[in-house]
């Protein structure tokens, strides 16, 4: 089914009968010998493409698709059952056991044959010894940097209470100038970086806890929506 065609067809706002009719003609399915499995597949493909264009798919069309898909599943299950009855097919029951219930099998132990190290390996190890040292030092530096980044920078270190009041003032100012009465955490920050996030996040939590603001996050990693809280002063 070409997307262009679907687009054109969807514009006519068809009901489900017309949709079915259209799909049968588009897919070249013989109306006197309809394979329900094929039809169900074509129908659901059509609906998902239709949705892609952001058109509202009529509820009845969706229901018809669901019914067709159920018929398809039932047909396939029936086919599988028929096949399992086939005398060639061995009957094997599905086991329902937990991994931890699997009997313990101990593999025969093997000898691990070793040889002597060579002079080349010794030279290689000499080189690597210093690489290890450099890697360790770099790792240490990285760790120190990360700790530094997460901590407030000296000189800018200010009292947490002070930070809370500053943030509250900022929120208040922003909200006063806005009609909707809400703002977001990212809008509050002068710049979106680790340092600013860390500096402002815990004051925000405190304000939320005190009920001076109402902060809400609809999902993980979503922006935090901030409104004025019950205890707004």
């Amino acid at each position, binding site marked *: 089914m070409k997307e262009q065609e679907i687009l054109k067809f969807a514009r006519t706002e068809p009901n489900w009968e017309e949709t079915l009719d259209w799909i049968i003609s588009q897919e070249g399915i013989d109306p006197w010998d309809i394979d329900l499995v094929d039809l169900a597949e074509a129908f659901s493909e059509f609906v998902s493409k239709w949705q892609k264009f952001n058109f509202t798919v009529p509820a009845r069309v969706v229901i018809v698709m669901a019914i067709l898909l159920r018929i398809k599943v039932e047909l396939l299950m029936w086919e599988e059952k028929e096949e399992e009855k086939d005398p060639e*097919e061995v009957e094997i029951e*599905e086991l329902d056991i937990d991994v931890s219930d699997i009997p*313990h099998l101990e593999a*025969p*132990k093997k000898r691990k044959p070793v040889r002597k190290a060579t002079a080349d390996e010794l030279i290689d190890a000499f080189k690597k010894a210093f690489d290890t040292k450099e890697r360790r030092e770099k790792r240490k530096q990285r760790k120190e940097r990360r700790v530094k980044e997460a901590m407030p920078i000296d000189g800018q270190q200010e009292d947490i209470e002070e930070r809370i009041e500053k943030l509250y003032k900022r929120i208040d100012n922003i909200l006063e100038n806005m009609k909707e009465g809400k703002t977001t955490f990212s809008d509050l920050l002068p710049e979106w970086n680790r340092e600013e996030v860390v500096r402002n996040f815990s004051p925000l939590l405190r304000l939320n806890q005190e009920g001076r603001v109402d902060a809400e996050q609809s999902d993980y990693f979503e922006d935090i929506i901030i409104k004025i809280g019950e205890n707004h002063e």
Partner: protein
Amino acid sequence: MSEETEAIIEAAMFISSEPLSVGKLRKVSGKDKEEVNSSLENIRKKFSDEGHGIELFQSAEGYELRVKPEYLDEVSHLTPYSDLSRGQLKVLALVAFKGPIKQSNIAKIIGNRAYSYIKDLERKQLIRTEKHKRTKTLEITDEFKNYFGIEERKELEEKLEETLGEDSEKLLEKA
């Protein structure tokens, strides 16, 4: 000098981390197929003697020296190494105790990594797959019995009972 050929083939099998094919042994010893084969035969005879605790073992993967199965239990605590991973062992246990079992069923119990374990075990010829129309079933092979030094499935079940006691019956009933 056939004695030297025997010696070098023995040394090669002793130090090799995997079984060696005749082709590989020819390369190492620089001898032809006949000499390699007759040397292997002599080595087999020598080690079959009762005074020896190791033997020549031939599997699908090639020739190797290994501890005679009758001494394995007494000495295997001396090494921590085995050549099967824990994941492979789980799949193998399922096939051994519950086989024939569907491949998809194993994946359901163990997770998707089961498929790669199954491939490894097939390569080692410890299990074989059989295709039926829509499903693949797995079973252990004769090589499995060789590898574990076990003759029959019954023996396996006895071994299982020894280690698991009552639980084993429950498990076997489920199969």
